[in-house]
Protein backbone atom coordinates (compact mmCIF):
# COMPACT_ATOMS: atom_id res chain seq x y z
CA UNK A 1 0.00 0.00 0.00
CA UNK A 2 1.29 3.43 -0.94
CA UNK A 3 1.54 6.15 1.64
CA UNK A 4 -0.79 9.06 1.13
CA UNK A 5 0.85 12.16 -0.21
CA UNK A 6 0.95 14.51 2.75
CA UNK A 7 -0.71 17.95 2.85
CA UNK A 8 -2.51 17.63 -0.47
CA UNK A 9 -6.20 17.67 0.27
CA UNK A 10 -8.34 15.82 -2.22
CA UNK A 11 -11.07 18.12 -3.58
CA UNK A 12 -13.56 15.29 -3.06
CA UNK A 13 -12.93 15.38 0.67
CA UNK A 14 -14.19 18.93 0.94
CA UNK A 15 -17.43 17.88 -0.73
CA UNK A 16 -17.65 14.86 1.55
CA UNK A 17 -17.08 16.97 4.67
CA UNK A 18 -19.77 19.42 3.68
CA UNK A 19 -22.27 16.66 3.01
CA UNK A 20 -21.52 15.03 6.36
CA UNK A 21 -22.27 18.34 8.08
CA UNK A 22 -25.55 18.58 6.17
CA UNK A 23 -26.38 15.12 7.53
CA UNK A 24 -25.76 16.27 11.09
CA UNK A 25 -27.88 19.37 10.51
CA UNK A 26 -30.79 17.32 9.18
CA UNK A 27 -30.60 14.93 12.13
CA UNK A 28 -30.63 17.80 14.63
CA UNK A 29 -33.63 19.36 12.93
CA UNK A 30 -35.36 15.97 12.79
CA UNK A 31 -34.81 15.45 16.52
CA UNK A 32 -36.08 18.91 17.51
CA UNK A 33 -39.23 18.53 15.42
CA UNK A 34 -39.91 15.06 16.80
CA UNK A 35 -39.28 16.05 20.41
CA UNK A 36 -41.08 19.42 20.36
CA UNK A 37 -44.34 18.09 18.94
CA UNK A 38 -44.37 14.86 20.93
CA UNK A 39 -43.77 16.37 24.34
CA UNK A 40 -45.06 19.87 23.57
CA UNK A 41 -48.53 18.67 22.59
CA UNK A 42 -48.53 15.27 24.27
CA UNK A 43 -47.81 16.31 27.85
CA UNK A 44 -51.29 17.50 28.73
CA UNK A 45 -54.11 15.38 30.09
CA UNK A 46 -55.28 12.90 27.41
CA UNK A 47 -58.84 14.21 27.85
CA UNK A 48 -57.75 17.55 26.40
CA UNK A 49 -56.08 16.07 23.32
CA UNK A 50 -57.10 17.33 19.91
CA UNK A 51 -57.15 14.88 17.02
CA UNK A 52 -55.99 14.98 13.40
CA UNK A 53 -57.27 12.24 11.06
CA UNK A 54 -58.17 10.20 14.13
CA UNK A 55 -54.68 10.36 15.66
CA UNK A 56 -53.85 12.46 18.73
CA UNK A 57 -52.36 15.73 17.43
CA UNK A 58 -48.95 15.18 19.10
CA UNK A 59 -48.59 11.85 17.37
CA UNK A 60 -49.77 13.10 14.01
CA UNK A 61 -47.35 16.03 13.87
CA UNK A 62 -44.38 14.36 15.51
CA UNK A 63 -44.46 10.93 13.89
CA UNK A 64 -46.56 11.10 10.72
CA UNK A 65 -46.08 14.68 9.47
CA UNK A 66 -42.50 14.64 10.76
CA UNK A 67 -41.63 11.56 8.74
CA UNK A 68 -43.20 12.90 5.56
CA UNK A 69 -41.44 16.22 6.07
CA UNK A 70 -38.05 14.54 6.52
CA UNK A 71 -38.55 12.48 3.37
CA UNK A 72 -39.29 15.65 1.40
CA UNK A 73 -36.41 17.60 2.97
CA UNK A 74 -33.91 14.81 2.34
CA UNK A 75 -35.02 14.55 -1.28
CA UNK A 76 -34.61 18.29 -1.83
CA UNK A 77 -31.25 18.45 -0.08
CA UNK A 78 -29.81 15.51 -1.99
CA UNK A 79 -31.04 16.75 -5.36
CA UNK A 80 -29.94 20.36 -4.83
CA UNK A 81 -26.80 20.18 -2.73
CA UNK A 82 -25.17 16.82 -3.22
CA UNK A 83 -22.40 16.65 -5.79
CA UNK A 84 -21.48 13.60 -7.83
CA UNK A 85 -17.83 12.65 -7.63
CA UNK A 86 -15.85 9.70 -8.99
CA UNK A 87 -14.75 7.16 -6.38
CA UNK A 88 -11.84 5.46 -8.09
CA UNK A 89 -8.46 7.12 -8.36
CA UNK A 90 -7.46 7.79 -11.93
CA UNK A 91 -5.18 5.27 -13.54
CA UNK A 92 -6.23 2.46 -11.25
CA UNK A 93 -7.35 -0.69 -12.98
CA UNK A 94 -10.99 -1.67 -12.51
Amino acid at each position, binding site marked *: *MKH*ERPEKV*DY*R*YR*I*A*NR*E*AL*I*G*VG*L*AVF*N*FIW*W*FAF*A*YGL*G*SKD*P*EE*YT*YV*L*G*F*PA*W*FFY*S*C*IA*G*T*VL*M*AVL*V*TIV*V*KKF*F*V*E*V*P*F*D*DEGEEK
Partner: protein
Amino acid sequence: MNWQATIPLILILVVMFAIGILASRRVQSSKSFLDEYFLGERSLGGFVLAMTMTATYGSASSFIGGPGTAYTEGLGWVLLAMSQVVTGYFVLMILGKKFAIVTRKYKAVTMVDFLKARYDSKWVVLLAAASIIIFLFSAMAAQWIGGARLIESLTGMNYTSALFIFALSVLVYVTIGGFRAVALTDAVQGSIMFVGTLVLLIATIVAGGGVQEIMNDLSAENPNLITPFGAEGTLSPAYVSSFWILVGVGVVALPQITVRAMSYKSSKSMHRAIIIGTILVGFIMLNMHLIGVFARPILPGIEVGDRVMPLIALEVLPAWVAGVVLAAPMAAIMSTVDSLLLLVSSTVVKDVFLNYVKPEASHKQVMRLSIGVTAILGIIVFLLALDPPDLIIWLNLFAFGGLEAAFIWPVVMGLYWQKGNKYGALASMITGVGLYILSDSFFPQPFGLHSVVLPVVLSFVAYVLASLATQKKQQIAQN
Protein backbone atom coordinates in the same frame (compact mmCIF):
# COMPACT_ATOMS: atom_id res chain seq x y z
CA MET B 1 -50.48 -27.35 10.22
CA ASN B 2 -51.88 -24.24 8.58
CA TRP B 3 -51.16 -24.98 4.92
CA GLN B 4 -52.74 -21.90 3.41
CA ALA B 5 -50.41 -19.71 5.38
CA THR B 6 -47.44 -22.03 4.95
CA ILE B 7 -47.37 -22.25 1.16
CA PRO B 8 -46.52 -18.57 0.53
CA LEU B 9 -43.70 -18.89 3.05
CA ILE B 10 -42.31 -21.91 1.25
CA LEU B 11 -42.51 -20.07 -2.08
CA ILE B 12 -40.46 -17.25 -0.63
CA LEU B 13 -37.82 -19.63 0.62
CA VAL B 14 -37.61 -21.13 -2.88
CA VAL B 15 -37.01 -17.68 -4.36
CA MET B 16 -34.22 -17.05 -1.85
CA PHE B 17 -32.54 -20.32 -2.82
CA ALA B 18 -32.75 -19.42 -6.48
CA ILE B 19 -31.07 -16.08 -5.83
CA GLY B 20 -28.35 -17.80 -3.82
CA ILE B 21 -27.61 -20.19 -6.65
CA LEU B 22 -27.52 -17.43 -9.26
CA ALA B 23 -25.19 -15.33 -7.12
CA SER B 24 -22.90 -18.29 -6.53
CA ARG B 25 -22.13 -18.37 -10.25
CA ARG B 26 -20.72 -14.87 -9.94
CA VAL B 27 -18.66 -16.03 -6.98
CA GLN B 28 -17.22 -18.94 -8.95
CA SER B 29 -16.28 -16.81 -11.94
CA SER B 30 -15.02 -13.80 -10.00
CA LYS B 31 -11.39 -12.75 -10.28
CA SER B 32 -11.17 -11.51 -6.71
CA PHE B 33 -12.97 -13.97 -4.47
CA LEU B 34 -12.81 -11.88 -1.28
CA ASP B 35 -14.08 -8.74 -2.94
CA GLU B 36 -16.98 -10.60 -4.52
CA TYR B 37 -17.94 -12.93 -1.67
CA PHE B 38 -17.83 -10.33 1.10
CA LEU B 39 -18.64 -7.17 -0.85
CA GLY B 40 -20.25 -8.03 -4.21
CA GLU B 41 -17.37 -6.27 -6.05
CA ARG B 42 -18.62 -2.84 -4.91
CA SER B 43 -21.23 -2.76 -7.60
CA LEU B 44 -24.54 -2.14 -5.81
CA GLY B 45 -26.98 0.31 -7.36
CA GLY B 46 -29.11 2.80 -5.44
CA PHE B 47 -32.24 0.70 -5.10
CA VAL B 48 -30.53 -2.46 -3.92
CA LEU B 49 -28.35 -0.43 -1.56
CA ALA B 50 -31.34 1.27 0.07
CA MET B 51 -33.15 -2.03 0.36
CA THR B 52 -30.25 -3.92 1.85
CA MET B 53 -29.60 -1.14 4.38
CA THR B 54 -33.22 -1.02 5.47
CA ALA B 55 -33.66 -4.76 5.52
CA THR B 56 -30.49 -5.37 7.49
CA TYR B 57 -31.49 -2.83 10.04
CA GLY B 58 -35.21 -3.57 10.23
CA SER B 59 -34.54 -6.70 12.15
CA ALA B 60 -36.44 -8.87 14.55
CA SER B 61 -36.28 -6.02 17.03
CA SER B 62 -38.56 -3.95 14.87
CA PHE B 63 -40.60 -6.67 13.27
CA ILE B 64 -41.43 -9.03 16.07
CA GLY B 65 -40.36 -7.47 19.35
CA GLY B 66 -41.17 -3.90 18.28
CA PRO B 67 -44.86 -4.30 17.40
CA GLY B 68 -45.21 -6.60 20.40
CA THR B 69 -43.95 -3.89 22.73
CA ALA B 70 -46.08 -1.28 20.93
CA TYR B 71 -49.06 -3.50 21.71
CA THR B 72 -48.24 -3.27 25.41
CA GLU B 73 -47.05 0.34 25.61
CA GLY B 74 -49.27 2.12 23.06
CA LEU B 75 -48.37 5.14 20.93
CA GLY B 76 -45.40 6.04 23.16
CA TRP B 77 -43.52 3.08 21.73
CA VAL B 78 -44.28 4.11 18.15
CA LEU B 79 -42.80 7.50 19.01
CA LEU B 80 -39.69 5.73 20.25
CA ALA B 81 -39.51 3.58 17.13
CA MET B 82 -39.64 6.65 14.91
CA SER B 83 -36.19 7.63 16.16
CA GLN B 84 -35.01 5.11 13.57
CA VAL B 85 -36.07 7.24 10.61
CA VAL B 86 -32.84 9.18 10.95
CA THR B 87 -30.85 6.08 9.95
CA GLY B 88 -32.30 6.31 6.44
CA TYR B 89 -30.24 9.35 5.56
CA PHE B 90 -27.75 9.81 8.41
CA VAL B 91 -25.60 6.73 7.87
CA LEU B 92 -24.96 7.31 4.18
CA MET B 93 -24.48 11.04 4.63
CA ILE B 94 -22.02 10.75 7.52
CA LEU B 95 -19.86 7.89 6.28
CA GLY B 96 -20.70 9.15 2.86
CA LYS B 97 -18.33 9.75 0.03
CA LYS B 98 -15.30 9.96 2.26
CA PHE B 99 -15.76 6.39 3.44
CA ALA B 100 -16.38 5.19 -0.11
CA ILE B 101 -13.22 6.89 -1.39
CA VAL B 102 -11.00 5.95 1.53
CA THR B 103 -12.04 2.29 1.64
CA ARG B 104 -11.34 1.98 -2.08
CA LYS B 105 -7.94 3.55 -1.59
CA TYR B 106 -7.18 1.13 1.26
CA LYS B 107 -8.76 -1.77 -0.69
CA ALA B 108 -10.76 -2.49 2.46
CA VAL B 109 -13.35 -5.26 2.32
CA THR B 110 -14.53 -5.07 5.94
CA MET B 111 -14.81 -2.41 8.59
CA VAL B 112 -11.87 -3.98 10.37
CA ASP B 113 -9.81 -3.58 7.17
CA PHE B 114 -10.59 0.09 7.32
CA LEU B 115 -9.54 0.34 10.96
CA LYS B 116 -6.38 -1.62 10.22
CA ALA B 117 -5.35 0.67 7.39
CA ARG B 118 -6.30 3.82 9.25
CA TYR B 119 -4.66 3.05 12.60
CA ASP B 120 -2.05 0.50 11.63
CA SER B 121 -2.31 -1.35 14.94
CA LYS B 122 -2.58 -5.03 15.69
CA TRP B 123 -4.42 -4.38 18.93
CA VAL B 124 -7.08 -2.23 17.30
CA VAL B 125 -7.70 -5.02 14.80
CA LEU B 126 -7.86 -7.80 17.36
CA LEU B 127 -10.09 -5.83 19.72
CA ALA B 128 -12.38 -4.86 16.86
CA ALA B 129 -12.60 -8.42 15.60
CA ALA B 130 -13.32 -9.72 19.11
CA SER B 131 -16.12 -7.19 19.68
CA ILE B 132 -17.70 -8.06 16.36
CA ILE B 133 -17.59 -11.78 16.99
CA ILE B 134 -18.93 -11.58 20.55
CA PHE B 135 -21.65 -8.99 20.04
CA LEU B 136 -22.88 -10.11 16.66
CA PHE B 137 -23.10 -13.64 17.90
CA SER B 138 -25.64 -12.63 20.52
CA ALA B 139 -27.50 -10.53 17.98
CA MET B 140 -27.60 -13.43 15.59
CA ALA B 141 -28.89 -15.87 18.18
CA ALA B 142 -31.66 -13.42 19.03
CA GLN B 143 -32.65 -13.14 15.41
CA TRP B 144 -32.73 -16.88 14.81
CA ILE B 145 -34.99 -17.31 17.80
CA GLY B 146 -37.31 -14.65 16.33
CA GLY B 147 -37.38 -16.42 12.99
CA ALA B 148 -38.12 -19.78 14.51
CA ARG B 149 -40.86 -18.36 16.78
CA LEU B 150 -42.52 -16.86 13.76
CA ILE B 151 -42.54 -20.11 11.79
CA GLU B 152 -43.73 -21.86 14.93
CA SER B 153 -46.78 -19.63 15.45
CA LEU B 154 -47.59 -19.49 11.76
CA THR B 155 -47.43 -23.15 10.85
CA GLY B 156 -47.98 -24.87 14.18
CA MET B 157 -44.71 -26.78 13.89
CA ASN B 158 -42.69 -27.25 17.06
CA TYR B 159 -39.88 -24.82 17.86
CA THR B 160 -37.03 -27.16 17.04
CA SER B 161 -38.18 -28.09 13.57
CA ALA B 162 -39.12 -24.47 12.88
CA LEU B 163 -35.61 -23.42 13.86
CA PHE B 164 -34.15 -26.14 11.72
CA ILE B 165 -36.02 -25.02 8.60
CA PHE B 166 -35.10 -21.41 9.21
CA ALA B 167 -31.42 -22.17 9.80
CA LEU B 168 -31.14 -24.43 6.81
CA SER B 169 -32.63 -21.95 4.38
CA VAL B 170 -30.46 -19.05 5.52
CA LEU B 171 -27.32 -21.18 5.58
CA VAL B 172 -27.77 -22.40 2.04
CA TYR B 173 -28.00 -19.08 0.30
CA VAL B 174 -25.47 -17.23 2.42
CA THR B 175 -22.89 -19.97 2.22
CA ILE B 176 -22.94 -20.37 -1.52
CA GLY B 177 -23.89 -16.89 -2.68
CA GLY B 178 -22.01 -14.48 -0.40
CA PHE B 179 -22.68 -10.76 -0.20
CA ARG B 180 -24.30 -10.46 -3.60
CA ALA B 181 -26.87 -13.11 -2.70
CA VAL B 182 -27.46 -11.37 0.63
CA ALA B 183 -27.97 -7.96 -0.97
CA LEU B 184 -30.26 -9.29 -3.69
CA THR B 185 -32.38 -11.32 -1.32
CA ASP B 186 -32.52 -8.21 0.90
CA ALA B 187 -34.00 -6.27 -2.01
CA VAL B 188 -36.71 -8.88 -2.45
CA GLN B 189 -37.28 -9.04 1.30
CA GLY B 190 -37.40 -5.24 1.59
CA SER B 191 -40.10 -5.08 -1.06
CA ILE B 192 -42.09 -7.75 0.75
CA MET B 193 -41.81 -5.77 3.98
CA PHE B 194 -42.97 -2.58 2.31
CA VAL B 195 -46.06 -4.10 0.73
CA GLY B 196 -46.74 -6.53 3.57
CA THR B 197 -46.85 -3.92 6.32
CA LEU B 198 -49.08 -1.67 4.25
CA VAL B 199 -51.63 -4.42 3.56
CA LEU B 200 -51.65 -5.50 7.18
CA LEU B 201 -52.01 -1.95 8.49
CA ILE B 202 -54.99 -1.24 6.25
CA ALA B 203 -56.66 -4.53 7.16
CA THR B 204 -56.09 -3.84 10.85
CA ILE B 205 -57.58 -0.34 10.64
CA VAL B 206 -60.63 -1.72 8.82
CA ALA B 207 -61.05 -4.51 11.36
CA GLY B 208 -60.82 -1.99 14.21
CA GLY B 209 -63.49 0.27 12.67
CA GLY B 210 -61.23 3.20 11.66
CA VAL B 211 -58.47 5.14 13.41
CA GLN B 212 -60.88 7.29 15.44
CA GLU B 213 -62.68 4.26 16.77
CA ILE B 214 -59.43 2.48 17.68
CA MET B 215 -58.16 5.56 19.56
CA ASN B 216 -61.44 5.75 21.49
CA ASP B 217 -61.17 2.09 22.45
CA LEU B 218 -57.57 2.54 23.54
CA SER B 219 -58.22 5.60 25.65
CA ALA B 220 -61.27 3.93 27.19
CA GLU B 221 -59.10 1.00 28.23
CA ASN B 222 -56.19 3.09 29.52
CA PRO B 223 -55.71 6.77 28.56
CA ASN B 224 -51.94 6.35 28.91
CA LEU B 225 -51.93 4.23 25.75
CA ILE B 226 -52.45 7.32 23.61
CA THR B 227 -49.89 9.50 25.43
CA PRO B 228 -46.15 9.58 24.65
CA PHE B 229 -45.40 8.11 28.08
CA GLY B 230 -46.30 4.43 27.74
CA ALA B 231 -49.00 2.32 29.39
CA GLU B 232 -47.63 2.79 32.91
CA GLY B 233 -46.34 6.32 32.29
CA THR B 234 -42.78 5.00 32.58
CA LEU B 235 -41.36 6.12 29.22
CA SER B 236 -39.68 9.38 30.18
CA PRO B 237 -38.61 11.89 27.50
CA ALA B 238 -34.93 11.37 28.43
CA TYR B 239 -35.20 7.62 28.08
CA VAL B 240 -37.11 7.70 24.80
CA SER B 241 -34.74 10.31 23.38
CA SER B 242 -31.76 8.05 24.23
CA PHE B 243 -32.99 5.77 21.51
CA TRP B 244 -31.90 8.39 19.01
CA ILE B 245 -28.41 7.23 19.83
CA LEU B 246 -29.10 3.54 20.22
CA VAL B 247 -31.23 2.88 17.13
CA GLY B 248 -30.77 6.23 15.34
CA VAL B 249 -27.45 7.96 14.78
CA GLY B 250 -25.41 5.26 16.55
CA VAL B 251 -26.26 2.83 13.77
CA VAL B 252 -23.51 4.52 11.78
CA ALA B 253 -21.06 2.35 13.75
CA LEU B 254 -22.67 -1.05 13.22
CA PRO B 255 -20.30 -3.16 11.13
CA GLN B 256 -23.12 -4.77 9.15
CA ILE B 257 -24.24 -1.27 8.12
CA THR B 258 -20.80 0.24 7.46
CA VAL B 259 -19.87 -2.65 5.19
CA ARG B 260 -22.82 -1.64 3.02
CA ALA B 261 -21.53 1.91 2.93
CA MET B 262 -18.50 0.63 1.02
CA SER B 263 -20.36 -1.58 -1.40
CA TYR B 264 -22.00 0.88 -3.76
CA LYS B 265 -21.06 1.62 -7.30
CA SER B 266 -21.11 5.40 -7.66
CA SER B 267 -22.14 8.59 -5.92
CA LYS B 268 -25.29 8.49 -8.01
CA SER B 269 -26.36 5.20 -6.45
CA MET B 270 -25.58 6.64 -3.03
CA HIS B 271 -27.81 9.66 -3.66
CA ARG B 272 -30.68 7.47 -4.76
CA ALA B 273 -30.19 5.19 -1.79
CA ILE B 274 -30.42 8.09 0.66
CA ILE B 275 -33.77 9.20 -0.73
CA ILE B 276 -35.26 5.73 -1.11
CA GLY B 277 -33.88 4.60 2.24
CA THR B 278 -35.37 7.50 4.18
CA ILE B 279 -38.82 6.95 2.71
CA LEU B 280 -38.59 3.21 3.20
CA VAL B 281 -37.43 3.24 6.81
CA GLY B 282 -39.99 5.88 7.81
CA PHE B 283 -42.82 4.09 6.11
CA ILE B 284 -42.01 0.61 7.37
CA MET B 285 -41.26 1.64 10.97
CA LEU B 286 -44.42 3.71 11.25
CA ASN B 287 -46.68 1.06 9.75
CA MET B 288 -45.18 -1.84 11.61
CA HIS B 289 -45.43 -0.31 15.06
CA LEU B 290 -48.87 1.16 14.45
CA ILE B 291 -50.06 -2.33 13.61
CA GLY B 292 -48.96 -3.41 17.08
CA VAL B 293 -50.90 -0.59 18.77
CA PHE B 294 -54.00 -1.03 16.63
CA ALA B 295 -54.05 -4.77 17.30
CA ARG B 296 -54.80 -4.18 20.97
CA PRO B 297 -58.55 -3.38 20.80
CA ILE B 298 -59.06 -6.09 18.17
CA LEU B 299 -57.27 -8.89 19.97
CA PRO B 300 -57.01 -8.00 23.66
CA GLY B 301 -55.07 -10.04 26.16
CA ILE B 302 -52.12 -11.44 24.16
CA GLU B 303 -49.53 -12.37 26.74
CA VAL B 304 -46.38 -13.03 24.71
CA GLY B 305 -45.48 -9.85 22.77
CA ASP B 306 -43.70 -11.80 20.05
CA ARG B 307 -46.96 -13.41 18.98
CA VAL B 308 -48.90 -10.20 18.31
CA MET B 309 -47.87 -9.87 14.67
CA PRO B 310 -48.66 -13.41 13.52
CA LEU B 311 -51.92 -13.53 15.47
CA ILE B 312 -53.25 -10.21 14.20
CA ALA B 313 -52.38 -11.14 10.61
CA LEU B 314 -54.24 -14.43 10.88
CA GLU B 315 -57.17 -12.60 12.52
CA VAL B 316 -57.72 -9.74 10.06
CA LEU B 317 -56.63 -11.31 6.77
CA PRO B 318 -57.60 -14.40 4.77
CA ALA B 319 -55.13 -17.18 5.60
CA TRP B 320 -53.21 -17.13 2.33
CA VAL B 321 -52.80 -13.33 2.41
CA ALA B 322 -51.63 -13.66 6.01
CA GLY B 323 -49.00 -16.08 4.79
CA VAL B 324 -47.73 -13.56 2.24
CA VAL B 325 -47.80 -10.69 4.74
CA LEU B 326 -46.08 -12.68 7.45
CA ALA B 327 -43.34 -13.38 5.02
CA ALA B 328 -42.48 -9.71 5.73
CA PRO B 329 -41.18 -10.10 9.28
CA MET B 330 -39.73 -13.42 8.23
CA ALA B 331 -37.95 -11.60 5.42
CA ALA B 332 -36.73 -8.96 7.84
CA ILE B 333 -35.25 -11.53 10.14
CA MET B 334 -33.64 -13.52 7.38
CA SER B 335 -32.08 -10.44 5.87
CA THR B 336 -30.59 -9.41 9.19
CA VAL B 337 -29.35 -12.87 9.98
CA ASP B 338 -27.77 -13.41 6.60
CA SER B 339 -25.76 -10.21 6.79
CA LEU B 340 -24.65 -10.87 10.36
CA LEU B 341 -23.57 -14.37 9.46
CA LEU B 342 -21.53 -13.13 6.53
CA LEU B 343 -20.01 -10.39 8.62
CA VAL B 344 -18.88 -12.64 11.45
CA SER B 345 -17.48 -15.03 8.88
CA SER B 346 -15.58 -12.25 7.11
CA THR B 347 -14.18 -11.16 10.47
CA VAL B 348 -12.88 -14.62 11.19
CA VAL B 349 -11.49 -15.30 7.71
CA LYS B 350 -10.32 -11.92 6.53
CA ASP B 351 -9.50 -10.00 9.67
CA VAL B 352 -8.06 -12.71 11.87
CA PHE B 353 -6.93 -15.61 9.70
CA LEU B 354 -5.54 -13.76 6.69
CA ASN B 355 -4.00 -11.00 8.78
CA TYR B 356 -2.32 -13.00 11.49
CA VAL B 357 -2.52 -16.73 10.90
CA LYS B 358 -1.72 -17.37 7.28
CA PRO B 359 -1.33 -14.31 5.04
CA GLU B 360 -0.01 -16.37 2.12
CA ALA B 361 -3.10 -18.60 1.80
CA SER B 362 -4.01 -19.42 -1.80
CA HIS B 363 -7.15 -18.31 -3.60
CA LYS B 364 -8.64 -21.76 -3.31
CA GLN B 365 -7.87 -22.11 0.39
CA VAL B 366 -9.48 -18.73 1.14
CA MET B 367 -12.55 -19.75 -0.80
CA ARG B 368 -12.95 -23.08 0.95
CA LEU B 369 -12.27 -21.51 4.30
CA SER B 370 -14.79 -18.68 3.84
CA ILE B 371 -17.56 -21.03 2.84
CA GLY B 372 -16.63 -23.52 5.58
CA VAL B 373 -16.47 -20.89 8.33
CA THR B 374 -19.81 -19.42 7.26
CA ALA B 375 -21.42 -22.85 7.49
CA ILE B 376 -19.85 -23.74 10.84
CA LEU B 377 -20.82 -20.42 12.39
CA GLY B 378 -24.38 -20.98 11.28
CA ILE B 379 -24.47 -24.37 12.91
CA ILE B 380 -23.11 -23.01 16.21
CA VAL B 381 -25.78 -20.29 16.31
CA PHE B 382 -28.39 -22.92 15.57
CA LEU B 383 -27.28 -24.91 18.61
CA LEU B 384 -27.33 -21.77 20.79
CA ALA B 385 -30.81 -20.89 19.65
CA LEU B 386 -32.16 -24.32 20.54
CA ASP B 387 -32.47 -23.33 24.19
CA PRO B 388 -33.46 -19.70 23.90
CA PRO B 389 -33.84 -16.87 26.41
CA ASP B 390 -37.15 -15.01 26.32
CA LEU B 391 -37.01 -11.35 25.35
CA ILE B 392 -35.32 -11.12 21.97
CA ILE B 393 -35.52 -7.37 21.77
CA TRP B 394 -33.22 -6.75 24.73
CA LEU B 395 -30.66 -9.31 23.69
CA ASN B 396 -30.57 -7.68 20.33
CA LEU B 397 -30.29 -4.15 21.66
CA PHE B 398 -27.46 -5.16 23.97
CA ALA B 399 -25.42 -6.27 21.00
CA PHE B 400 -26.16 -3.11 19.03
CA GLY B 401 -25.23 -0.86 21.94
CA GLY B 402 -21.95 -2.68 22.52
CA LEU B 403 -20.88 -2.38 18.90
CA GLU B 404 -21.86 1.26 18.75
CA ALA B 405 -19.93 2.08 21.90
CA ALA B 406 -16.91 0.28 20.46
CA PHE B 407 -16.84 1.62 16.94
CA ILE B 408 -18.60 4.94 16.59
CA TRP B 409 -15.60 7.18 17.29
CA PRO B 410 -12.82 5.07 15.78
CA VAL B 411 -14.83 5.06 12.54
CA VAL B 412 -16.28 8.57 12.45
CA MET B 413 -13.31 10.40 13.94
CA GLY B 414 -10.96 8.19 11.96
CA LEU B 415 -12.58 9.56 8.84
CA TYR B 416 -12.83 13.21 9.73
CA TRP B 417 -10.11 13.98 12.26
CA GLN B 418 -6.55 13.59 11.09
CA LYS B 419 -5.04 13.77 14.55
CA GLY B 420 -6.93 10.69 15.71
CA ASN B 421 -4.52 7.79 16.20
CA LYS B 422 -4.39 4.21 17.41
CA TYR B 423 -4.11 5.18 21.07
CA GLY B 424 -7.25 7.21 20.76
CA ALA B 425 -9.03 4.35 18.99
CA LEU B 426 -7.97 1.82 21.63
CA ALA B 427 -8.91 4.10 24.52
CA SER B 428 -12.26 4.79 22.93
CA MET B 429 -13.05 1.12 22.28
CA ILE B 430 -12.06 -0.01 25.75
CA THR B 431 -13.93 2.85 27.45
CA GLY B 432 -17.01 2.36 25.31
CA VAL B 433 -17.43 -1.38 25.64
CA GLY B 434 -16.21 -1.57 29.24
CA LEU B 435 -18.51 1.16 30.48
CA TYR B 436 -21.45 -0.17 28.52
CA ILE B 437 -21.18 -3.61 30.02
CA LEU B 438 -20.65 -2.21 33.54
CA SER B 439 -23.42 0.32 33.21
CA ASP B 440 -25.83 -2.19 31.71
CA SER B 441 -25.20 -4.63 34.55
CA PHE B 442 -25.09 -2.25 37.53
CA PHE B 443 -26.76 1.07 36.59
CA PRO B 444 -29.28 0.23 33.88
CA GLN B 445 -30.58 3.80 33.51
CA PRO B 446 -28.10 6.44 34.70
CA PHE B 447 -29.83 9.87 34.90
CA GLY B 448 -32.90 8.30 33.29
CA LEU B 449 -30.98 7.69 30.06
CA HIS B 450 -30.52 4.39 28.27
CA SER B 451 -27.26 2.75 29.33
CA VAL B 452 -25.69 3.25 25.89
CA VAL B 453 -25.64 7.05 26.10
CA LEU B 454 -22.90 7.67 28.66
CA PRO B 455 -20.42 5.16 27.19
CA VAL B 456 -20.84 6.77 23.77
CA VAL B 457 -20.21 10.24 25.19
CA LEU B 458 -17.28 9.18 27.38
CA SER B 459 -15.63 7.13 24.65
CA PHE B 460 -15.57 10.31 22.56
CA VAL B 461 -13.73 12.09 25.36
CA ALA B 462 -11.35 9.13 25.64
CA TYR B 463 -10.66 9.17 21.90
CA VAL B 464 -9.83 12.85 21.79
CA LEU B 465 -7.76 12.95 24.99
CA ALA B 466 -5.74 9.84 24.19
CA SER B 467 -5.09 10.99 20.62
CA LEU B 468 -3.93 14.42 21.72
CA ALA B 469 -1.81 13.08 24.56
CA THR B 470 0.08 10.76 22.22
CA GLN B 471 0.67 13.10 19.27
CA LYS B 472 4.44 13.18 19.91
CA LYS B 473 4.74 9.45 20.40
CA GLN B 474 2.85 8.83 17.19
CA GLN B 475 5.04 11.21 15.19
CA ILE B 476 8.22 9.57 16.46
CA ALA B 477 6.87 6.15 15.59
CA GLN B 478 6.07 7.31 12.07
CA ASN B 479 9.49 8.83 11.36
